[in-house]
């Protein structure tokens, strides 16, 4: 096998994070490379650089021995690289053929009118190679997800791509559809195409790839033939050396740990969200920090949003402190004592035009009236409440009248927590609260969760950084493809244990 494309020392920095850390990777003709790593390990950042969608801060891409600068995604296409993204990038109203040839220059008649006959013939030819059965004239919106993905692969064929990159292509595909796609990819490889397959599903990597590259914290940590891995060693590479640290070791470094009560604060029974979450049942005790782990797309956010009434659930019961609650909108959840700190705090948490003070009091405005019988907020009481929260949470702000926009990510997170501190809520749901904030702010967030728990309140903590869950939680449950697949508690919590559940592999049996 000959290498035709390589990256040399790619580096990409985002503020506060090195997303890609000196990655040098070779791509060989006719080889299927499995690219794996945790959420945020840098896989997508590398792919984006290859696709010309972002530019590296350091390093270069070398094609056929010559350095290549990609200023625009279109150049990657011209150079024979094709990308099938996780989210389908099709134009639903256009036909299959129009999608296949979109942006590649449709065949024309007399330079002006589209030559549909030729267009359909060209598309039909490549679709035939993919197993056939797809009508080039059909609107692409009428196709199944699997078929739409094949159409995106057809795009790669029609451009005679030498490199085809697929990012999580098997999501929402059935086993049969996946097998068909694998056959197509193997056929591509036999025609000297280099295939890069990004997936969280390790069994697919072992079933398909010739070579596996593992990324962790932006760096390439392993790059070997697939035969040199087994599931255990692969998971170890993915998680890193400290993955097997036990809960206690972790907890010491985080300095937290709770003493949960026996009384149940929140009980969710048989919760379903069509297509996202199936039949989830769990409970949180008072004073407990319960972790919720899972890979991207496992349905964690969907689950908690449904519990909070932010999204519609198709079935399921919610009990708070033993009382069944009818929750169909966030107001009901708040009245029942459930609070959600949303994942996307800028777009779902903050009211941008509002000052710190007004952001703080918007959820509990009723508690700050001049007279309890009149719906008139008292700015004095609001000011006092905001000051209390700023002090108690140590929020760094010039004044409570500053625009909330001016705060740093960590302080915005604390601001949104401050909104609910005096609401008397019993259950706090934190959805990725430490995403995008710096290390010391993260530690403050852990301490605040711990404080809530020590006050007898309950915390549900969603995180993609499993190390945090290991360090902070007394119990962690794991969601995979919308289903609750397991739970670990106490001493048994470790990153490896969580990842095994996430990937659906037991290392002791498969390893």
């Amino acid at each position: 096998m000959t290498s035709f494309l390589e990256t040399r020392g790619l580096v990409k920095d985002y503020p506060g994070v090195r997303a890609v850390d000196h990655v040098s990777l070779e791509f060989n003709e006719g080889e299927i490379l499995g690219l794996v790593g945790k959420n945020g390990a840098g896989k997508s950042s590398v792919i984006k650089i290859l696709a010309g969608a972002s530019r590296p801060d350091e390093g270069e891409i070398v094609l056929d021995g010559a350095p290549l600068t990609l200023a625009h995604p279109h150049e990657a296409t011209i150079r024979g690289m094709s990308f099938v993204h996780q989210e389908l990038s099709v134009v639903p109203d256009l036909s299959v053929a129009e999608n296949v040839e979109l942006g590649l220059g449709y065949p024309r008649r007399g330079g002006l009118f589209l030559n549909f006959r030729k267009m359909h013939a060209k598309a039909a030819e490549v679709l035939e190679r993919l197993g056939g059965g797809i009508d080039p004239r059909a609107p692409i919106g009428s196709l199944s997800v699997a078929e739409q993905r094949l159409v995106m692969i057809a795009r790669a064929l029609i451009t005679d791509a030498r490199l085809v990159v697929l990012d999580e292509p098997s999501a929402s595909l059935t086993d049969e559809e996946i097998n068909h796609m694998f056959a197509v990819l193997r056929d591509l490889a036999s025609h000297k195409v280099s295939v890069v397959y990004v997936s969280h599903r390790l069994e697919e990597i072992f079933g398909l790839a010739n070579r596996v590259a593992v990324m962790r914290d932006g760096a390439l940590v392993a790059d070997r033939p697939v035969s040199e891995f087994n599931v255990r060693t692969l998971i170890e590479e993915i998680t890193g050396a400290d993955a097997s640290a036990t809960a206690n070791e972790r907890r010491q470094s985080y300095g937290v740990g709770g003493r949960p009560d026996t009384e149940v604060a929140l009980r969710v029974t048989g919760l379903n969200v069509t297509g996202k979450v199936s039949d989830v049942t769990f409970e949180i005790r008072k004073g407990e920090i319960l972790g919720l782990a899972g890979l991207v797309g496992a349905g964690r956010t969907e689950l908690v949003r449904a519990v909070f009434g932010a999204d519609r659930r198709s079935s399921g019961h919610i009990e708070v402190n033993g009382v069944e609650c009818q929750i169909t909108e966030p107001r009901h959840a708040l009245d029942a004592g459930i609070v959600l700190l949303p994942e996307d705090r800028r777009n779902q948490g903050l009211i941008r035009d509002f000052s710190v003070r007004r952001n703080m009091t918007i959820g509990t405005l009723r508690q700050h009236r001049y007279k309890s019988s009149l719906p008139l907020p008292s700015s004095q009481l609001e000011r006092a409440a905001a000051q209390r929260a700023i002090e108690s949470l140590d929020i760094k702000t010039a004044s409570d009248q500053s625009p909330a926009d001016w705060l740093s990510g960590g302080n915005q997170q604390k601001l949104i927590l401050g909104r609910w501190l005096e609401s008397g809520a019993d259950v706090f749901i934190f959805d990725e609260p430490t995403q995008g904030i710096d290390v010391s702010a993260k530690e403050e967030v852990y301490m605040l969760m711990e404080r809530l728990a020590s006050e007898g309140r309950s915390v549900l903590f969603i995180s993609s950084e499993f190390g945090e869950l290991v360090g902070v939680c007394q119990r962690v449950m794991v969601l995979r493809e919308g289903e609750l697949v397991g739970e670990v508690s106490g001493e048994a919590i470790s990153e490896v244990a969580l990842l095994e559940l996430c990937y659906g592999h037991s290392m002791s049996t498969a390893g």
Partner: protein
Amino acid sequence: MTEIETVGAGAGSVVGTSHSDRLREFVGKYGLLIVYAAAFVFFASKRGDSFLRIDTWTRTILSPTGFTPLLVLALGLTVVMAMGDFDLSFGNMVGLAGGTAGALMINYDINWVVAILIALLIGVAVGVANGYFVAYLNASSFVITLAAGTILFGFETLWTNNRSISGLEVQSFLNLDEIKVIQNIRLPFFVAMAFFLLVWLMLDRTELGRFMYAIGGNREAARLAGIRVQRIRTIGFIVVAISATIVGVLLVANIGGTRSDLGTAFLLDAYASVFLGAAVFRPGQFNAPGTLVGVVFLRTIEVGLLQMQIDNSWINISKGVILLFGVLLSQLVVRQR
């Protein structure tokens, strides 16, 4: 994939308040008032004899047929626009309310109080319908209220057989327009000011108003903070419809009859006033005091230019230019953030 943000930036640091920053902010907040003062001085020096007389103001600038309808409608509009919605139906709602009240009194001899109440009831129903389609069924407020306006116009012409009604002689009803409260200032001016106070207090002093601004700031965040977004947006459309009903009734009392184009003439000026209003006091935010300034500004320009016997075409051009620059002025501050 990676969230991009400046870690730690801005926290605790006192944001620069240099000389130019403060000047910028002052111009952004009060620039429109300065322009207004300049226009005022200009008109006073050119046509001081008539422009500075109280009579001129009460009969023209603050007139029952110019000032009152514009202010009441613009205030209603301020409420929905604070929540990020539009209403294009209120012009025709004015016509429908006027037509309803007028037709009931003239054609059916119905008591004027009952006639007003029925018009109000219809107004509320229209607001609820607009709100239901926009807030609950998640349709674009632009399209829904455009459709509603067309439908309302149809009903109005149906009610009145597509004819102007005149010869209304119910004196107690006509008094709504004619009663002089203080000196020569007639009742409609005070109705408008009372409505102003009401909307001002509601937006700036009540929980409801705070929720409305929160919805305008970030609808999804407001919902997740427990605000009943759908209900409150619907209330906004009801406020607009009620403001249109008030205007319709007062205009019918003024002309002693009704025409189908009673309110449509105010549509664009109302929007202009609200946008101008967002250029003063709280740049970028629709607010009641700002709207009042916007209305007075537009009325002054219009009357001032008329007194100078300037062609109507130029009045329109001037108003447009003022709107353009007023909005740019407010951007001075907003863009900085």
